[in-house]
């Protein structure tokens, strides 16, 4: 048992570092924190740099433009990326729909969609949740009826992140309601420009716009855009959910946030002394850091068992629960560190005039961060899954 790196792996780490120092620039980092179009353009620019290097799509089949990193190489890349402060890719296309397309899609679909995902030409969003189907996803009601070579889709999807930027949406729709709920679900790829689609903004408590409702009124979707067989969509989606839970854990990003938090604590003062000397903060930091040190190895254990061909299985629920709890603990510490300034809403005034820089961002992360224990199947549902499938209760 060891985690030592071989000479090749050390060389790879150097290559990752060199790539990051050249391509992850201050300028790009500033723009990617911006709003709306500025954010989207900067995110695409970053993804294109990764793609040019051939590093955008670990886990994809190599013939589709993926890169077949070992567990260790993946770990090295993620660690270095987080150390440099560079963001993850937007997951909906690259990490969520792409595995379904290359896993279960037709050759025609692979040719049509995968290259555009790699080039970030198509921006995807996820059409799973509905007003009546949250953690109980199989309760979904959005209906698709066959009409010649098309499905006619009616219904609504909700909490759709980045629908306002998206060119395509991948949807679970109901094609049969006669049998078991999971059996009559079909996986469709839908062009967001199709007539009959309306995107309604949902204002959220973080003062940002990321959530939407997507309404479908007699939207025609060609049968050619169906993944695999009709009524079998649940099987395809399920394979994806474990991946989703694994990536929600965001261990590398929490490591970076915790490191930045330690720096801020050394800068902020209380009664003339740095807050890093405050024992309350020290204990809260170490509680979280120790949990994260463990979770990093839990993730490695899951990845190692994936590499042995066992797939990210039911253990992914543990990663999701612990990972999101850690994220929220970190967000809470940023808020408490910012004190009064956590309440500041940036408008006309800048950090210079207000006298403080990170309160607004801290609150935004905290507020939006509430979602992490809800999405991807709420943490309570993850516990149900674990109780049933891992503990056999």
């Amino acid at each position, binding site marked *: *048992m060891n985690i030592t790196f071989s000479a090749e792996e050390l060389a790879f780490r150097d290559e990752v570092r060199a790539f990051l120092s050249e391509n992850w620039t201050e300028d790009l980092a500033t723009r990617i924190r911006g709003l709306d179009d500025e954010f989207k353009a900067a995110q695409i620019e970053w993804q294109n740099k990764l793609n040019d290097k051939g590093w955008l799509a670990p886990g994809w089949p190599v013939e589709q433009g993926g890169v077949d990193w070992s567990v260790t190489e993946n770990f090295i890349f993620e660690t270095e990326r987080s150390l440099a402060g560079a963001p993850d890719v937007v997951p909906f296309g690259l990490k969520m729909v792409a595995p379904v397309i290359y896993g279960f899609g037709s050759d025609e679909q692979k040719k049509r969609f995968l290259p555009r995902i790699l080039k970030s030409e198509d921006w995807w969003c996820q059409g799973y949740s509905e007003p009546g189907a949250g953690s109980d996803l199989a309760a979904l009601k959005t209906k698709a009826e066959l009409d010649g070579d098309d499905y006619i889709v009616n219904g609504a999807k909700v909490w759709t992140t980045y629908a306002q930027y998206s060119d395509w949406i991948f949807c679970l729709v109901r094609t049969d309601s006669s049998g078991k709920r999971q059996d009559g679900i079909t996986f469709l790829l839908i062009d967001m420009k199709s007539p009959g689609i309306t995107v309604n903004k949902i204002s959220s408590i973080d003062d940002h716009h990321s959530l939407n409702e997507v309404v479908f009124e007699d939207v025609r979707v060609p049968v050619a855009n169906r993944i695999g067989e009709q009524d079998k969509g649940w099987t395809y989606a399920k394979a994806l959910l474990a991946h989703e839970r694994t990536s929600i854990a965001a261990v590398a990003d929490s490591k970076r946030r915790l490191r930045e938090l330690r720096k801020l604590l050394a800068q902020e003062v209380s009664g003339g002394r740095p807050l890093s000397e405050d024992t309350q903060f020290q204990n809260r930091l170490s509680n979280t850091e120790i949990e994260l040190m463990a979770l990093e190895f839990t993730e490695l254990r899951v990845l190692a068992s994936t590499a042995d061909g066992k797939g990210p299985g039911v253990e992914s629920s543990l990663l999701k629960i612990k990972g999101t709890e850690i994220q929220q603990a970190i967000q809470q510490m940023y808020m408490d560190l910012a004190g009064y300034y956590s309440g500041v809403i940036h408008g006309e005034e800048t950090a210079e005039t207000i006298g403080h820089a990170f309160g607004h961002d801290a609150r935004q992360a905290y507020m939006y961060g509430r979602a992490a224990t809800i999405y991807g199947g709420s943490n309570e549902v993850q516990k149900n899954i*674990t109780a049933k499938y891992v503990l056999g209760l």
Partner: protein
Amino acid sequence: MNFNLSEEQNMLKDSVTRFVQDEYDFESRRANAASDLGFNPKNWQTFADLGWLSIPFDEAHGGFGGGATDVMAVMEEMGKGLVVEPFIATVLMFGGLLNKSGNAALQDANIEKVIDGSLQGAFAYLERQSRFELADVKTTAKADGNDFLLNGEKTVVSNGAAANKVVVSARTSGGQCDEAGITLFLIDTDAAGVERTSYRLMDGQLVANIKLTDVRVAADQVLGDVDNGYSIIEAVVADVTIALCAEALGIMQKLTTTTIEYTKTRQQFGVAISSFQALQHRMVDMFMAGEQAKSILYRAVCAAESGADDLAKNIAALKVMTGRNGKLIGDEAIQLHGGMGLTDELDVGHYVKRLMMINTTFGDADFQQKKFNQLSHT
């Protein structure tokens, strides 16, 4: 990077698993702990015959040449059986001190006897006032010709009652809490001036207070260098902490499994209580606490195997998490067993008490967290 045991390590682990299954039902364990020695000498001979007593020693001394991973594999299984035989005290602590002493003559004279099972050892590091501070040493050692004269009292010495030889930390210079000025001496427990009083701890182990009155020790019985014993203590305590936490992991897994099985059979309100969501979520919390403890143990083992710079931080983190998660699992195990959890007849409480002693050993979770904070702050 890999988290698998080697074939040899798997065989070692399996042999401990089999021993626990065949020889260590709960009633045998109870009898072993209650015996005069505090363990069963027949089992000790079995350990010797199976080669377990040779694990941490190098091949030149007839040892197995094992590292942290081997020790972990063994200790996890011993935890599941709640084994009371003094593997930690004699092999890992006493043997570990010999290993790190750099004193070839002492190694040649003693390691072979530890391996063949004829020598019981212990490490006397604690004193009445020292709480968790390894450097708080009042016992004195004064040079007297070619010898030293030791005076003082060591307390709560694990396996102190059965030990033939004990390594004692004593002050040769410096102030009461200074790391510098501590020297390690090897003494015979039947030497003149050694007085032992034994008593039991809640986990069943037999320990002793050892009073030293003008105990004469030859200079060639010093482990390491005079005044420089502390770094040896630190290194051995680091290794043994990993072993203790591996034992704790075995206990946590056993308690979780036992609890799950119990709730499946216990009927209330006409159904198995395992069907209640409130209880299911508590058992998931137990499971997660155990998995996280396993991960941080793997992390510390990997750091020890590679001699990582941040080993001390990893070990502090391991001890914090093992203490806290062990408490959660122990408390939940008793709670979910209901009234039965309070009975001495059931093994659950005994596993819990061992977890509690492990938490205390070398500093509890709060103490270790403070250490972690200091290591993070610098």
